């Protein structure tokens, strides 16, 4: 941090401060990376190498095929993809409309309603599992993907994030578009949404990773292969005490987090930037 700004620091001078920091950072990073590295090791080697670290150990994909055959992971993936895209689409539509109203309209009850929206940041559907389950039973939606998604469609976080973004967009742009004869939804579609693209990307990544990983509510509301997302599928698979080898369980574990992990490693920079953007607001 300091080397750059201090003109008298010579470029190759040995510095205790920097060495200690670098060492500390690396030790922590290795410690943080160890669990994943370990899971990758066991998943790609035969079971007998679970605790024997031999660099010449043969690589194998057998654990993955075993896991894939032992449980309907294909179906689970399909369910998760349907779930995540459904939630994302719903959130984009509902949050955009609401955020626009909060950002650019004056109406009675505005501040009360906005407070009620923000309240969801504290009182999350994740906690209200008992009553939401009853609601789903009344609606006859138990054990459907719709039921997993419904409580998350109107997201207080999403409304807040988009409202903050919309408020930074100059009102003159909207007025100009209105003069050209654009309708309210037209203005939203042609002015606000295109200018808020980075926020949509950030929010989308946060939402997808959150709902891909969500577990408790899907566990409660689903009870069949046709609706279970991968997280619940993994739990059902791993909880069966049938002498499953750790290497197979680890392979299944990597399988469930795989798509997200690969996407993250490929788009690491954008991913981190998006989270930063979502966090700043």
């Amino acid at each position, binding site marked *: 941090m300091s080397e750059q700004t201090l003109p008298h620091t010579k470029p190759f001078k040995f510095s205790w401060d920097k060495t200690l920091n670098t060492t500390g950072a690396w030790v922590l990073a290795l410690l943080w990376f160890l669990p994943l590295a370990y899971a990758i090791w066991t998943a790609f080697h035969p079971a007998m190498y679970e605790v024997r670290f031999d660099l010449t150990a043969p690589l194998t994909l057998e654990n993955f095929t075993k896991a894939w055959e032992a449980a309907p992971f294909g179906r689970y993936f399909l369910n998760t993809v349907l779930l995540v895209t459904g939630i994302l689409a719903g959130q984009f539509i509902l949050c955009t409309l609401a955020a626009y109203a909060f950002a650019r309209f004056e109406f009675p009850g505005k501040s009360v309603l906005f407070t*009620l929206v923000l*309240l969801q940041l504290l009182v999350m559907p994740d906690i209200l599992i008992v009553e939401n389950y009853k609601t789903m039973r009344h609606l006859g939606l138990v054990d459907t993907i719709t039921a997993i998604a419904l409580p998350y469609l109107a997201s207080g976080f999403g409304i807040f994030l988009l409202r903050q973004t919309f408020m930074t967009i100059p009102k003159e742009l909207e007025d100009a578009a209105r003069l050209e004869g654009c309708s309210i939804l037209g203005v939203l579609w042609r002015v606000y949404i295109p200018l808020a693209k980075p926020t949509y990307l950030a929010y989308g990544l946060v939402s997808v990773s959150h709902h891909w*990983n969500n577990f408790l509510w899907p566990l409660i509301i689903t009870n069949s292969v046709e609706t279970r997302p991968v997280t619940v599928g993994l739990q059902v698979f791993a909880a069966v005490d049938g002498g499953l080898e750790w290497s197979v369980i680890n392979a299944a574990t990597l399988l469930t*987090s795989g798509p997200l992990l690969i996407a993250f490693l490929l788009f690491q920079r954008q991913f981190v930037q998006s989270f930063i953007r979502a*966090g700043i607001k």
Partner: protein
Amino acid sequence: MKFTRTTAQLNWIYAWLLLSPALIMLFAFTHYPAIVTLISSFFSTPRGKRPAKFIGLENYQALINDEIFWHVIWNNLLYALATIPISVAIALVMALWVNGKLRGLGFLRMAYFTPTVLPLIAVANIWLFFYTPGFGLIDQIRNGLFGLPDQNLLGQTDTVLWAVMAVAIWKEAGFFMIFYLAALQTIPPSLKEAADIEGASRWTFFWRIIFPLLMPTTLFVSVNAVINAFRLVDHIFVMTGGGPDNASTLLLFYIYEQAFKYWQTGYAATLTVVLLALLSILAIGQFFFFDRKVHYR
């Protein structure tokens, strides 16, 4: 005059139309269940054809006399008290490192942040293996390097909660790091230059300038950490199932057990009320605690 009034009214209608889809969903799955939870906490659990009956404070009385409940509350408070400061502190250190010019920055950032994108349920499976007595990595290291006997960290009442906390800290620190990193990047380099001219040490510079400037982020991160400490219980399902002897049961996990294992929905509603009250108190408390210390820019 008449014209402006009607446009204003027209705007109200538009605003309400734009808001209604989101608000209906929000009320249906957040506000309505929150209120009904409070109401059901005063009623008995409906059984078969017997509908729920008003029983006043009986559920709350049962709660006060429920030893497991107090055990669970204590567990969760300890869990929060330990995981929140540790994960926030680690996150801050990580952010300072990643924001610097260290070697292998790409790897550092990836290593710190990766746990965040993994499902907690998957993470728990990996850690479960670490903790396996005799066979898992931790015992391998204990046996191999130090000659210590096997230890079942997840099977002992005095170690299990700490073992579960380690997973939460590992999973969360990288997430919080991002917010600190974002805040650090908005601090102008001229501040550092000024401090250098004044001859301030790095230590002074951090505590007097950087740390106060990060206060809004610290508030935001710790509110999130509090919520997560009560909201995330996925790893409990995989690693311990709340055991042994409820030593690792957290409040939301206990609610799940009461509601969906024993079908005591009335009692589960009462527990949920406690959870909501706890969350509100903690969140409001944090705002007041930080209020004087936060320097808004």
